[in-house]
């Protein structure tokens, strides 16, 4: 049989496909009869240097929504809300984040916007505050008096750093010198300053500090310069995942034998493969795997972390990183705020969260903080885990007391951050 394909058939076929696609897109995907929809939005870097965090963050965000919907959605009074997720790739650029905020709020009508941190967060605040839409950042230093709807309820970067240094100093008192390395941006600068302060408090001398440019191609000279100072500790600070990966590999190849630490240690199984289990053993960082037995205890405010971890790894094999759960942790707190408020309205949810005696931070008891420093009481400060690689697996070795450390050191850490320009005078 001879099959002919002329212009008329082509146009007819194309129109059918287009109509079908449009109809399919127009249909709601998760709502059933009688159920309401609440939309949440993620503005996150899906491309660019920070994509190694942004992509897993969105994957976890979407998974949290799927798990919540499977469990029956969010009960608000007599209503049940199914959660729908919108996403915008801001490439970690302020201008694109603002475009995304206008799209998510103006077009998609989301009730919560979750962002990574720094300039993209700051850029969207005037618009989101005007629209009275809740948003969340991982960096507490993004808070300001003008961003009354911005919450720092998941991560509290960089304030959660010092307990990990304290733990290391307590457990390995023989370590006396450190070299700290990070990229030169608004994540690296406050992080290095906070690490340096914590090391100083523990009588560990910072013998080398390097803020390398984002365009760095070759990390061999960066590591050579650090190792030339013979540090006992190599601290990779809050370096982006790809940078961290390359620096750790360089440290291995250039023969470093000492202690390593950082804020995140993303894709550590791959790093073990690239170096060795022995080389990575004892690495100290801040982000646990969610199958950690400590997270199964009653004080953890995250529904079924083990299930979340298993489903995540099933859906995205090998993709688990520090950010796989941080956006989801924000959603978890927001959900409790929605349930307490009996509304998905941002103003109501904010008021309900602020009124709680024990705000439900993922790692247990916490309190609102920040009014004296940022003009808003929107940072949730409590505990944060200190994690160590043991026998090739991340293990929580201590729940660091961030609130306690901050209570004793607030003045000095804030002064330190002011000195590096990360807080207003």
């Amino acid at each position, binding site marked *: 049989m001879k099959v002919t394909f002329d212009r008329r058939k082509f146009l007819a076929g194309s129109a059918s496909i287009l109509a079908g696609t449009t109809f399919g897109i127009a249909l709601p995907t998760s709502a059933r009869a009688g159920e309401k929809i609440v939309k949440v939005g993620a503005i996150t870097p899906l491309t660019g240097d920070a994509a190694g965090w942004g992509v897993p963050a969105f994957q976890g965000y979407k998974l949290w929504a799927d798990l919540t919907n499977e469990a029956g959605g969010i009960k608000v009074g007599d209503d049940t809300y199914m959660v729908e997720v919108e996403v915008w790739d801001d490439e970690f650029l302020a201008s694109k984040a603002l475009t995304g905020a206008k799209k998510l709020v103006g077009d998609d009508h989301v009730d919560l916007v979750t962002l990574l941190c720094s300039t993209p967060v700051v850029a969207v605040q005037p618009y989101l505050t005007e629209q009275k839409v809740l948003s969340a950042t991982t960096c507490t230093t993004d808070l300001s008096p003008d961003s009354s709807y911005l919450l720092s309820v998941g991560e509290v970067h960089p304030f959660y750093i010092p307990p990990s240094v304290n733990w290391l100093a307590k457990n390995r008192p023989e370590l006396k010198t450190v070299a700290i390395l990070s990229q030169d941006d608004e994540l690296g600068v406050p992080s290095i300053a906070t690490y340096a302060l914590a090391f100083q408090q523990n009588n560990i001398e910072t013998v080398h500090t390097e803020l390398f440019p984002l365009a760095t191609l070759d990390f061999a000279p960066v590591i050579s310069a650090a190792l*030339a100072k013979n540090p006992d500790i190599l601290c990779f600070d809050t370096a982006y995942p790809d940078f961290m990966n390359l620096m750790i590999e360089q440290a291995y190849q250039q023969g470093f034998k000492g202690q390593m630490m950082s804020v995140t240690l993303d894709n550590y199984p791959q790093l073990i493969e690239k170096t060795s289990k022995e080389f990575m053993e004892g690495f100290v960082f801040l982000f646990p795997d969610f199958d950690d037995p400590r997270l199964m205890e009653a004080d953890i405010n995250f529904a079924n972390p083990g299930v979340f971890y298993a489903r995540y790894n099933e859906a995205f094999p090998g993709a688990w990183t520090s950010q796989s759960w941080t956006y989801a942790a924000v959603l978890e707190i927001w959900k409790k705020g929605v349930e307490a408020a009996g509304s998905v309205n941002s103003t109501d949810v904010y008021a309900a969260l602020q009124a709680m005696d024990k705000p439900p931070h993922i790692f247990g008891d916490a309190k609102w903080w920040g009014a004296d420093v940022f003009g808003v009481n929107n940072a949730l400060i409590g505990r944060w885990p200190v994690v160590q690689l043991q026998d090739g697996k991340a293990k929580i070795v201590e729940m660091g007391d961030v609130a306690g450390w901050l209570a004793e050191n607030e003045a000095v850490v804030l002064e330190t951050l002011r000195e590096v320009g990360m807080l207003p005078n």
Partner: protein
Amino acid sequence: MFDLVIQTTVNAVIASSFTALFAVGLVLIFGVAKVVNFAHGELYMVGAFSTWYLYSEMGLPFSVAALCAILVSTLVGIFMETVLFRWKRGDELGGLILSVGMLMILQVAVIYLFGQGLMKNVVSPLKDSWQVFGLPNVVVPYQRLLVLVVAVSALAALWFLLQKTRIGWALRACADDPMAAMLQGISINRFALIAIGISAALAGAGGAVMAPLVQIDPDMGHTVIINGLIVIIVGGVGSISGAVVAAVFFSFFHTFITTFTGGIYADIFVMLFMLFILVVKPTGIMGRHEKV
């Protein structure tokens, strides 16, 4: 301090070899096809992505993956010449704009094919390091030595091709005076195709051997192409030996300043140094003296 100087020298030699490998390809395509190929960095990126996919995802041996990656980059280069650049021969601005378009197409293509965002890990097939001359604090990873060996071998082979073979003479003739070359019966299109094929293969080889050492992402060609353009301008546009010399200057200067002062200052000082060279010698280090 002595160890650090030696270590930095070793690092700079390795960096020089890669920079030269990349820049020479850029010179070659400019000399023969008269195209400022902004997509040359993306040919390097294609080499790295192909290596990652074939070696890390498909499980092929690294050497096989690298050879396939070189082939893929070469084919992409041939495609660019056949479908794009050939039709804009003599129009340098048109060729440049087409190459920018190709740059974007290749970036989107790898995002479409391999996804975006997550790290593309390539476990080095050569994990160990060489203790240089037994010095305790001077090491060079074997993977970096591989970069040096591949770059020097490729550049030596290219030199032989250009200087000792009839194809090389024809390529040089096309670069020196295309009209005269045509009058001698040399097909500009044919030799432009050969030049771009070689150039793309060099970029692909660079991407393949560098894949375990660098951040593999769709934008990875950006910094490399900027460095490459600086090098060929300072070396003297059209001069292969100038590009090699400039690559060595560039890499040594950058590596030493990164090590002893910091990476932030390295970019600034390298630009000032290169600017100084152009002020002293506006044609570049070896401009006019030698062409492809």
